[in-house]
């Protein structure tokens, strides 16, 4: 089944204070589709003045929004989920057009998961409670969770609607107002969502401002009008945002990527069964979303006694990947999100080769025919080498996996942890001891055991080491968007006796 490029308006506005508005100085930028490198539409090239308007609207709305009941907030979050669900195909096609990812992914992963995140946080706030402790017979300590106020969120381009749905619902559920800046490569699905939910929240509760990092992102991150900044991206920008936030003594949450190891122990090949088939797929998941995933399993570690046999199966499965029109449901790997991303990946493949990595499959761009000839496609690539190579140490953010072998558990762990990052990892084994001990010894915030690339709303996600700090998803995320009001109440009629 095949879909077609969706229709867009000529230009879009920022969504501020409940309505779409043109950027203050009237400047726009062209947003293109990586699928075929054609124009999608023009989006506001916002400046500080636009960001300030959004922050002002959010501040004006925060008192009354922060005082709404959990019941009311939950109802509105559920309403958003219902609206996305009712328009699932429309969102999926827009997302494929803007990001380049295959339609089968947006239909089955991005959009359904986004919906679920809205519902999860709608549910969470109905069930959770504060706490109260009787400290002694006459003293009660009561903990009330209060919203921070206004939250600034800067989200990436690899899962535009899903990353929005990771960040917006918990912040709103906690009673905050939000100013969100989508990535400039992928402003479309956030805009579509604002069109669909324009009337759901009171004006000022949700604001979306488009534009470039140095012009719109920086004023948002450094504004004294926000009480928290949440960011997903890379390390240098992460450091800058922390600097800006430090001027306001604002808390930050950072999700800064990784170089995740995916470890296959010899027992996976004990049987040629459904589990081995799952493990092979687990290794090939490096190509999922064109490798543009912070947790891309981009380092493939295979135990030496199964190395040849297992790698043969992986190469075979990788070669079977279908690259075609991303709007066609048969497409498995689509376009990289932008030209600079495409160039960067090819540059990494080149340095990998120069460092002595062997190309087992792929290793070059992929040219599609006809209208897709100008899109940014790269062949799923397996590079065989060792962990000190640059391609093993840097997030390429492409469909490129770096393969190496290990002798035993100790060597597997040494390689897995020899990285600056610690976001994700995969462990595959039939050995009951390894199932627990190896994940515990890996320094990463999420270890998938006998699975990979699952992102349920109910499991916390976040990094160790240079992958950042703070967690997303799960009930615990609420506390990254709240502060604790402690009320210490005395029921004692008698004075202290000091004065």
């Amino acid at each position, binding site marked *: 089944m095949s879909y077609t490029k969706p229709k867009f308006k000529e230009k879009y506005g920022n969504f501020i204070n409940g309505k779409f508005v043109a950027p203050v100085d009237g400047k726009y*930028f062209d947003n293109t589709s990586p699928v075929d490198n054609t124009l999608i539409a023009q989006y506001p*090239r916002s400046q500080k003045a636009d960001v300030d308007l959004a922050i002002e609207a959010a501040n004006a709305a925060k008192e009354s929004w922060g005082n709404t009941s959990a019941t009311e907030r939950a109802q509105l979050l559920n309403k958003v989920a219902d609206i996305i669900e009712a328009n699932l195909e429309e969102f999926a096609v827009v997302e494929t057009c803007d990001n380049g990812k295959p339609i089968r992914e947006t239909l089955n992963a991005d959009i359904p998961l986004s919906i679920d995140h809205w519902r999860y946080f709608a549910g969470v706030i109905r069930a959770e409670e504060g706490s109260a402790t009787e400290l002694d017979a006459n003293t009660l300590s009561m903990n009330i969770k209060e919203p921070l106020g206004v939250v600034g969120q800067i989200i*990436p*381009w*690899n899962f535009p609607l899903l990353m929005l749905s990771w960040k917006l619902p918990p912040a709103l559920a906690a009673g905050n107002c939000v100013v969100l800046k989508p*990535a*400039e*490569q992928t402003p479309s699905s956030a805009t579509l969502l604002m069109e669909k939910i324009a009337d759901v929240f009171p004006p000022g509760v949700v604001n979306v401002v488009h534009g*470039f*990092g*140095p*012009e719109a*992102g*920086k004023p948002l991150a450094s504004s004294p009008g926000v009480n928290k900044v949440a960011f*997903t*991206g*890379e*390390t*240098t*920008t*992460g*450091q*800058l945002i922390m*600097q800006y936030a430090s001027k306001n003594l604002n808390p930050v949450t950072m999700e*800064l*990527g*990784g170089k995740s190891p995916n470890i296959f122990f010899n027992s996976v090949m004990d049987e040629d069964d459904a589990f081995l088939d799952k493990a092979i797929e687990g290794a090939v998941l490096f190509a999922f979303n064109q490798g543009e995933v*912070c947790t891309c399993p981009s380092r493939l570690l295979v135990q030496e006694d199964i190395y040849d046999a297992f790698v043969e199966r992986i190469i075979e499965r990788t070669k079977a990947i279908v690259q075609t029109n991303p709007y066609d449901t048969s497409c498995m790997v689509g376009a990289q999100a*932008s*030209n*600079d*991303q495409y*160039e*960067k990946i090819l*540059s*990494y493949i*080149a*340095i990998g080769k*120069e*460092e002595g990595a062997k190309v087992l499959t792929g290793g070059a761009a992929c040219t599609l025919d006809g209208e897709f000839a100008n899109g940014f496609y790269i062949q799923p690539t397996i590079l065989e080498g060792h962990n*000190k190579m*640059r391609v093993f*140490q*840097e*997030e*390429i*953010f492409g469909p490129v996996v770096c393969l190496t072998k290990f002798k035993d558990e100790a060597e597997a762990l040494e390689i897995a942890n020899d990285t*600056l*990052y610690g976001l994700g990892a995969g462990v595959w084994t039939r050995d009951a001891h390894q199932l627990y001990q190896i994940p515990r010894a890996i320094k990463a915030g999420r270890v998938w055991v006998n699975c990979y690339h699952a992102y349920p709303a109910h499991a916390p996600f976040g990094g160790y080491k*240079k*992958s950042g700090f703070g967690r997303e998803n799960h009930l615990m995320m609420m506390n990254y968007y709240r502060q604790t009001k402690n009320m210490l109440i005395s029921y004692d009629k008698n004075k202290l006796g000091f004065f």
Partner: protein
Amino acid sequence: MKPSRVAITEKAIKIVQKLQEQYGDLIFHQSGGCCDGSSPMIFEKGDMYLDDSDVLLGNIAGVNYYMNQDQYEYWKHTHLTIDITEGRGSSFSLEIPLGLRFIIHSRLLTDEEMTLFNK
């Protein structure tokens, strides 16, 4: 010419000069991590807090090029050439509004360079 770990293409120099006219003194900082990670970022001098944990790789087109020490440990056997390409990064790097993006091309250091830089 003095040996250097980092070089820049003529095309990229033109963009650096354009940004220098607009912003004054600049620095490059090599990013890591996801999304726009592994790309060079260019900022106004003084915008980013630098200290002993940032290694100065060299000066190109009048701009110092820094990389964090622990990232440098994994990169120090390679030579970097800064180039410019069309594209749309999403970081705070100053060239982004021009619809351009700095990228790096890398090669291995020669034995001679390795001795010189990493002794």
